[in-house]
């Protein structure tokens, strides 16, 4: 399936479903090193996103991303709202009016999303945040696209790398976010935002 508007809408639905499935796990991850609301907040956000997407029509993937952005920003309530919201907003801008994402546009979309998260949260790779998953995804997507892979393979490479990026947060001491108050005690725990980033990108692959 092409990475078109129907894909973008299916991605949204699958994201809401996977976040709902993993809500308890995300709550547990966040309770260990944060304030414990990540799963609930994202679940509420993506439910609102699905409602908004169901009640409108879209011409482009970018238009879908923009609706996701504004709904997440206005409904999530925790840091994930502005962070994922900004990611989707920048993704929407990078996608522009394109009806179907090719490999290069997909890399541009993922890069813009990652850059949006970085500029919003001021975190860098290695700070034990969702940036670790986003950056791994962008690097893998760029490599795959440069090797001449098609958009679906590029997306799969990004999603696989995001899982590895999320796992890479486990041994780290957090330098940003609520977990940064814990110092060494955050070591051994996976960052919940990196984990949900991996689930979101996996849903994109499943929709393709």
């Amino acid at each position, binding site marked *: 399936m092409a990475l078109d508007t129907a894909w973008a809408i299916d991605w949204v639905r699958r994201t809401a479903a996977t976040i709902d499935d993993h809500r308890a796990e995300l709550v547990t991850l966040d309770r260990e090193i944060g*304030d414990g*609301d990540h799963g609930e907040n994202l679940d509420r956000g993506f439910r609102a996103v699905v409602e908004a997407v169901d009640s409108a029509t879209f011409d482009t993937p970018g238009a879908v991303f923009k609706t996701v952005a504004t709904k997440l920003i*206005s409904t999530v*309530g925790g*840091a994930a*709202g502005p962070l994922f919201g*900004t990611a989707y907003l920048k993704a929407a801008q990078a996608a522009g009016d394109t009806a179907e994402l090719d490999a290069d546009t997909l890399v541009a979309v993922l890069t813009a999303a990652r850059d949006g998260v970085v500029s919003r*949260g001021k975190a860098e790779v290695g700070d034990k945040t969702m940036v670790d998953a986003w950056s791994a995804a962008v690097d893998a997507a760029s490599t795959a696209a440069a090797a001449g892979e098609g958009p679906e393979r590029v997306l799969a490479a990004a999603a696989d790398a995001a899982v590895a990026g999320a796992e890479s947060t486990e041994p780290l001491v957090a330098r*940003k976010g*609520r977990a940064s108050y814990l110092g060494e005690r955050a070591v051994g725990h996976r960052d919940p935002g990196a984990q949900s980033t991996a689930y979101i990108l996996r849903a994109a692959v499943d929709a393709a």
Partner: protein
Amino acid sequence: MTVGILVVSHSAAIATGTVELARQMAADVPLVAAGGTEDGGIGTSFEAITEGIGALSSADAVVVLCDLGSAYLTTDTALDFLDEADRARVHVSQAPLVEGTVAAAVAAQTGGDVDAVLAAAASAAASAEDVSSASRPTGDRPGGATPVDDGGPVPETVASATVELVNESGLHARPAAEFVKAAAKHEARVRVNGVDAKSLLAIMALALPQGATVTIEADGPDAQDAVDTLVALVRSGFGE
């Protein structure tokens, strides 16, 4: 210039409580609370922040004080959605929420412009080190210029004076704010009865009444001028 203050907290109770506390000392300052999520939970609300800025549309400038990390993220996101003219009016302080709001409100109440209000909020940080990190970035200076004192120890001027508080309310909110404003204009480190004279809350915590003796000490390049100015201010009775 009127400066409005928006208090952004994860908790509605903290936001409204902080506004109440500040209003006690700054009755004429427009203060708006934006705490908690839409459904009354713990979190920060993009809509509440946007509405709060809107509610302060008659102020010439808005200073926003935030509690924890995502309060800043949500505020920054809300600012991105404002048009340019509105965006230019809004300033986010990095000061601690409760102390910063009180200091900012008192500065606004005494007619401070937006820079004075931001400086007052920054001065509310707990220690001198916090003050400097809250009010300006540390580390490399723009342009790569290095401070002149790198070449070796420069003799510092030290000055001090003791003076009696003649005004009726002593060093209470408004006089304290004027005192801090005057002290902050000097480069020298200034201390009053042992506390940082550039910290409004530290001075207010001294609770010095009429008739109390105030010792002002300063060290740094304009130490003597700082002491002279502050002594004159105290002797003038702060216009009371």
